[in-house]
């Protein structure tokens, strides 16, 4: 038996997750800009920071993937919210049909109730699949942010071996750290909303 979560709570949770990921995607754009800047610096510095070339390319790729994933999560969240609202409307309808059945002591609405319940079940299964998908995508974005922080460490290490570019590379490492941490916090916020729903 697939668990059924409150449609009201589900709609709000999905919207809250979309909100967190929207804010995360705005920061991911800044992260992407930082990645482009790092590529430009690496290009300018040439052989003096050769070790950073691969890392900065990886970083640029990671930033783009983060934006894409944040946008995908936003879309899934909206789908989940719409599904929750549909379940909500069906639940209300079922309640009214039962009332009508009771008031008129007849079984005329039985088939309608059956059809709606079948649809509800199908919606609920889809809802549960999507919410798990959302969870796994949030995990993925969190892993991206861990990788991003490793990149920041590499930038700092490389910076110690250059004179002219040390300040710039240190600043970049700081930016990467700050943006990654902010995104991580939004992802944690989103996961907390989902956890609260799943535990309800």
């Amino acid at each position, binding site marked *: 038996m697939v668990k059924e979560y409150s449609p009201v709570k589900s709609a709000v949770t999905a919207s809250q997750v979309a909100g967190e990921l929207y804010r995360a995607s705005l920061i991911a754009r800044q992260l992407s800009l930082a990645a482009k800047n790092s590529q430009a610096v690496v290009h300018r510095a040439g052989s003096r920071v050769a070790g950073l070339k691969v890392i900065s390319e990886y970083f640029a790729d990671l930033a783009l993937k983060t934006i894409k994933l944040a946008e995908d999560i936003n879309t899934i969240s909206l789908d989940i*919210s719409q599904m929750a609202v549909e379940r909500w409307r069906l639940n209300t309808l079922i309640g009214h049909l039962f009332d009508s059945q009771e008031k008129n002591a007849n079984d005329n609405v039985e088939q309608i109730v059956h059809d709606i319940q079948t649809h509800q079940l199908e919606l609920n299964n889809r809802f549960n699949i999507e919410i798990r998908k959302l969870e796994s995508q949030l995990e993925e974005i969190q892993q991206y942010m861990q990788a991003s922080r490793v990149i920041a460490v590499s930038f700092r290490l490389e910076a110690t071996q250059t004179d002219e570019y040390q300040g710039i590379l240190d600043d970049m490492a700081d930016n990467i750290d700050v943006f990654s941490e902010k995104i991580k916090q939004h992802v944690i916020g989103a996961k907390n909303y989902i956890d609260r729903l799943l535990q309800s």
Partner: protein
Amino acid sequence: MEAKLLFDDKHQWYVFARDPTKPDKIIDTNQYMVVSGNESVILDPGGIEIFSSMLSTILKFIPIEQVTHLFASHQDPDIISSLGMWDQVIPNAKLYTPNLWEGFIRHFGCENIEFCGIEDGGGQLTIGDSVLHFIPAHYMHSSANFNVYDPVAKILFSGDIGAALEPQDSSLYIEDFDSHCDKMRFFHQRWMPSNAAKMNWLNRVRKLDIEMMLPQHGRIFRGKEIEQFFDWFEALEVGSAINS
């Protein structure tokens, strides 16, 4: 759903519109939100079909606890048929709407939200540190109907007045007033019932200092387009269906 910040000082005005996920055959609507401190009001929150898009879009900007008030300019379904859902999501909120429509609007479901009826003469609502004024716009088109005026932002939310019927992907702002009139004409001639009511409304709003006028359908008016609209509307004969 597209979201834009229209005014940002000590308080903010947002517009939410052009929802690509809404069913094709329902009219496109513009929703607005005023945020001040820890409070906010959603102006004409919209129909049940766009509820999930609205909720998701609003929560991009403020947490759910901060949605404290709703305002419905009148009773139409595209304005407030989502009430039954908001009633579950923000049970401690207050709904400001014309008092005359209470018995009708409650059909959408209002068990938890506090119903605050606005008397015909209008009134005020304080959101955080901002005071919004309810300007009577009766019979424009609904028999009990209000606009919302913000004297600090110099914004008038005009509801159905200034509305235009346009494709889903049209711009949020008027680009050419003359060509825009073609998109507004039928709406105003057919939905607005009374020339006397029209003049009464024009006399009220011409006294206000307005920099932006926000209709519930169509495009936003800025600067001189507002006075152009007033002049155009004054010259337009409304209540056209009596000739059919």
